[in-house]
């Protein structure tokens, strides 16, 4: 698993539940408390170990943790670069959903060795999307669910987004956009402010 994803998971656990809790999770997962480097690649098992340890230490279901991770990646100040890069995907949430299939390609354009699972988005009705996420890493669709919810908020859209289980070898996520212009949303300027 790419270090960026592991580092995201580490950041989510450490910043949501505190560094001490992260140290306990790291301990239980048999990794150093310094955790992951974003530019390195790790064995997939390490990610599972950290997740299993987090489930035990925090007493929360894995699915809940993964959805919260997806939300964290978009909404936390630390991960602002992720939010910004995602916002390049569309002018509004509907536009963003229509370019969601490009997400792995966009990720690879930014980080050539970052492979995200294949995503196939079908517009099943006006403003209703069925997203299929083909990943060897089970739970990617749950991360995506949390991420899409946070992106809808970010665009100021009102949307119902649900993880619908697995079907046909893919995790299924349903997205129903009720109102694209529901709230103000968050500011996005094409040009990045100097603070990195």
């Amino acid at each position: 698993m790419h270090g960026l994803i592991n580092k995201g998971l580490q950041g989510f656990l450490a910043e949501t539940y505190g560094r001490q809790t992260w140290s306990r999770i790291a301990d239980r997962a048999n990794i150093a408390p310094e955790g992951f480097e974003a530019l390195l690649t790790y064995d997939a098992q390490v990610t599972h170990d950290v997740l299993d340890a987090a489930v035990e230490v925090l007493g929360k279901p894995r699915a809940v943790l993964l959805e919260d991770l997806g939300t964290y990646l978009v909404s936390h100040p630390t991960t602002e670069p992720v939010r910004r890069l995602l916002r390049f995907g569309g002018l509004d949430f509907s536009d963003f959903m229509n370019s969601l299939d490009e997400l792995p390609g966009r990720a690879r354009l930014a980080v050539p060795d970052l492979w995200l699972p294949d995503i196939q988005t079908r517009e099943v009705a006006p403003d209703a999307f069925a997203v299929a996420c083909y990943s060897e890493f089970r739970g990617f669709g749950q991360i995506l669910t949390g991420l899409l919810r946070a992106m809808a908020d970010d665009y100021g859209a009102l949307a119902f987004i649900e993880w619908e289980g697995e079907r046909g070898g893919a995790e299924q996520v349903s997205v129903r956009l009720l109102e694209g212009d529901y709230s103000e949303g968050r500011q996005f300027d094409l040009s990045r402010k100097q603070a990195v």
Partner: protein
Amino acid sequence: MMPDPSQIPVPVEALDALLPMHVVVEPDGIVRHAAPTFRKICPVAEPVGMRFLDLLEIERPLTKVGTGDFENLVGARLRLRFRGRPGTSMKGVMTPLAPETGLLVDLSFGISVVAAVAEYGLTGADFAPSDQTIEMLYLAEANAAAMAEAHRLIGRLESSRDAANEASLTDGLTGLGNRRALEAWLAARVRSGRTFSLLQVDLDYFKAVNDTHGHGTGDAVLQAAAHRLRQGLRPGDDLARIGGDEFVALLDRTTDAAGLSALAERLIAAVEAPVCVGTTECRISASIGAAVSTGYAEPTLEAMLADADDALYTVKRTGRGRARIHAG
């Protein structure tokens, strides 16, 4: 009548959607229409009705700009900027419209797009959907983020390397102990109450080897000397390199002057045997100053080194290649 296939009537709205940074210029050089993004970046509130060349300066290709006759600029790669505005320069292309309707001039920011987007506060809606500008901005930002992360990683690696160096007990060139190791060895001997001697070994004529044959040869000679000194000691003795050509040995048990002198002479003889580096034969020697732990109530590295150094200085002054024991 069949429509002429070479003429496609294009409404202005379609041009605005496809080329949001274009202007249409009448045959007499007056701007007739300006597309939305062009208006947004234009320093003049109403460009329509102005002379195109009063609005924009064509910087390249200079030789073809001439008197303002646009004909020989058609199809050329233009570089333009707004007059009275030192900011971003733009790329452009001119193409004639239907006869007698004038020219279309389309602009883009080219490589200065990142600065231009910030300067003019442009959004995704200011570019045509088929335009690659947004992808280019995405890539520039992703690249900056990856570089920033790489810099942070290098910073972390550097600090851990510094920490590792600091914690290191080994001299990288010779594999012997370094000064930190020497301190630890000496402290251990003092703690256990063992008596021991300290030999400071200073290579003679080493600088000449370095100066004559270069540092590569110098390094090889240092490694050879280190090896020979180590061979000349017994198991349990310790040897460190504490400076360029300075070595320190800690010897257990041998504390009498005669034994110490004999050992020192053997070490010097070993170092004096010629060293061959490639086809170069190098000859060096060594001077040794010694101090014995029994001469101190509480032996410390500083005190013993200072006394050994004293003895060594005397040797150096009275001819090299010999050993001397500090009188205590």
